[in-house]
């Protein structure tokens, strides 16, 4: 019985939250990696673009709530997301037309494009804060828990409860669907293949008649979809605050590089690597050992490898180690 309790404990506090957080990071990391692979620059506006998409989602959610549309037990935001995506894609294409296109056409070095993305970051951040303000906002409605801790205890007769939030399930399901669709698109369709070809070798791709304008446009559209959904899922699961989104850019970058930048599948797994290591290393295992060990051996400290304050530091340290020993990332992206 104690063994099952210990496993449920880990499931409840590590596995489920890390899976949800990892999915949110994975979407962001694929976004970074696509922009890097096809447009060839590190996009420092990532976090703020995601917060822009989330903001639009929230505004639509409020509108639907005010006219009385809801999904019952599911959050209203799910209907708002498609509308937000349309808006977001428009925003992305607008930015590309007025800002990034000039540097792409004049073949500026990647560093200059990265600088330009900082300008976009400032502007996007300002727009988000001016429209919705800097404060914490929750826009979740509907049924909060799929399984409540108490119910689980009653059902199984265990000491430990397993609580699964509906947002966690939604996050994981939506991520899986979205990512499978994306990989199908990249691997099976003609446009997807030409995108990969363009990312792999630009000159050769242009030579074989691939239209760069179309590739760039589709990249921004996919990026808009990923940014909005990733951001909205994070906001549903936790809460929406522009500053948090800006900070999330850092683990997202770490995930993309750890997975091998330019490699979408690597980015996808990189998200989970970062999420699991952050949570595994900062969790206090005291209770876990109390179940497993006999009373005489029970630990009297928290058995925590690192305090939770260092959550971010964990992902960055992993990044530094990966950069040192395997600069192309775990799954062979571009060589740095």
């Amino acid at each position: 019985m104690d063994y099952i309790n210990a496993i449920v404990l880990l499931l409840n506090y590590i596995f489920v939250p890390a899976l949800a957080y990892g999915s949110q990071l994975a979407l962001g990391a694929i976004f970074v990696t696509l922009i890097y692979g096809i447009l060839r620059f590190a996009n420092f506006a990532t976090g703020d673009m995601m917060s822009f998409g989330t903001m639009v989602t929230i505004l639509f959610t409020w509108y639907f709530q005010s006219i009385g549309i809801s999904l019952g037990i599911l959050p209203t935001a799910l209907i708002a997301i498609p509308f937000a995506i349309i808006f977001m894609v428009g925003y992305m294409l607008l930015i590309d037309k007025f800002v990034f296109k000039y540097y792409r056409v004049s073949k500026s070095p990647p560093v200059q494009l990265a600088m330009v993305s900082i300008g976009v970051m400032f502007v996007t951040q300002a727009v988000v804060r001016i429209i919705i303000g800097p404060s914490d906002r929750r826009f979740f409605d509907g049924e909060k828990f799929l399984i409540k801790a108490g119910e689980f205890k009653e059902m199984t007769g265990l000491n430990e409860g397993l609580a699964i939030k509906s947002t966690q399930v939604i996050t994981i399901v939506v991520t899986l669907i979205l990512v499978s669709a994306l990989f199908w698109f990249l691997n099976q369709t003609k446009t997807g293949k030409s995108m990969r070809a363009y990312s792999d070798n630009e000159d050769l791709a242009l030579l074989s008649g691939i239209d760069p304008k179309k590739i760039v446009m589709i990249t921004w559209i996919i990026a808009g979809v990923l940014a909005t959904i990733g951001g909205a899922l994070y906001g549903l699961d936790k809460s929406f605050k522009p500053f948090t989104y800006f900070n999330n850019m850092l683990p997202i970058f770490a995930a993309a590089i750890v997975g091998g930048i330019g490699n979408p599948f690597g980015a996808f797994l990189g998200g989970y690597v970062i999420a699991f290591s952050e949570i595994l290393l900062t969790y206090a295992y005291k209770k876990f050992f109390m179940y497993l060990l006999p009373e005489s051996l029970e630990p009297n400290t928290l058995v925590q490898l690192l305090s939770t304050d260092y959550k971010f530091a964990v992902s960055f340290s992993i990044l530094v180690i990966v950069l040192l020993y395997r600069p192309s990332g775990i799954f062979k992206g571009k060589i740095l």
Partner: protein
Amino acid sequence: MRKNLNVIAAYTIMMGLIILVGIFQSWNIALSIFNLCLISAVMTMGANIQWGYAGLINFGIMGYTALGGLAAVLISVDPVQEAWSAGGSNILLSLLLIIGMVLAVRYVLKKYEKSKVRTYIIATIIIAGIIIIRFVSEPGIEAIEEVDPAKTGFLGGFGLPIIFSWIVGALFAGGLAFVIGKVALGLRADYLAIATLLISEIVIAIIKHEDWLTRGVKNVIGLKRPAPYEVNLQQTDWFINLVEKFNLSKLNLITDLNERQAALNQFVIEGSSIFVKLCYSGLFLIVVIILLILTQKALYSPWGRMMRAIRDNEEAANAMGKNVVKQHLLIFVLGSAIVGIAGAMLVTQDGLFTPGSYRPMRYTFLIWVMVIVGGSGNNFGAILGGFVVWFLWIESAPIGLYLVNLTTAGLADTHFLKVHLIESVPYFRFLMMGIGLLLIMRYRPKGILPEKIEIK
């Protein structure tokens, strides 16, 4: 003289703007803007050395600034004796252990050739070292943090004049840059940017949460000043006489003695805070001028020529026998050390150390906007960028308010849109910075004062 006309014109306009603030808002605001402009100028000089001279991208400015600030705390705060006796020995022992660990790793690296076994040995040393250090330091840290946590709860510093911290801050930041440079300088430009950004976040996380060293988010307040205190000044005779002399014409208009005394007191209070700010301006100005002379000399020296050669064509410079890796590391350390000085200056001026306030927007990206806007590769440009951008950063709120009032003039004061816009005036600064950066990058990619190298 003629070819420097644009430099002189740009600086005259800038000083004019600050003086206008002095006349229309208050001299206090103008001077505090001026002081922070000077500090920003030091930071931009540091970033400019790395980016403008050598083309190295460093997004870790926030980390070096914070380390400089930490130096100010460690130098100027009096040592906390109880904390030292409670846990000092444990901390010193851990320090020795860390040094031992580093030496052991170095020894293994030197002694054995690169192989899997070596990697495993190093990993074992590091993991075992960390576990031992945790066991040694933990009781010490707990004991230290329990010593009067509301007031101290940390080891304190050395109790020296805070001015020394400017040098120590440079050493701290340079040391960190040395480590980061060793690790990350081989990376391509945009990866270096990401890596330095993340490492600076780690530095901030450590400063925020190692309470025994920095008091963390509990902040350190009331640091000693290199300048006189306002309260003391207000009671010194020569200062009161000075203020009286300055304001004689205004005071003579008042005939009533009591009223005259009250007015004088008011002037003294105002004057004292202006005087203190002027003292800081003087100190900062000295630092800026010294650094400017040094960096200008370096720019036109054979060394500066070599750096530009490396920046413009690394392979060619390497082929000419220049050690690119070594020079990159050197300039990375030098630039970061200058940023460290600025960090110490900042804490010196504020008199308090607040680890929670170090955010990448303000301390990394804003500095980069300054360098790009001002003109990378040109020291005068970088300093001007520090002035212009900081000025706009502060004054954008009033400007934004004015614009909001202008555009919504037709709406009632209670109209929700107007209220909302007026509430969000503080965020117009981000908008202005972003648009400014984008416009400069598009239409004047070399900045306001572009790099101009004439061979002397």
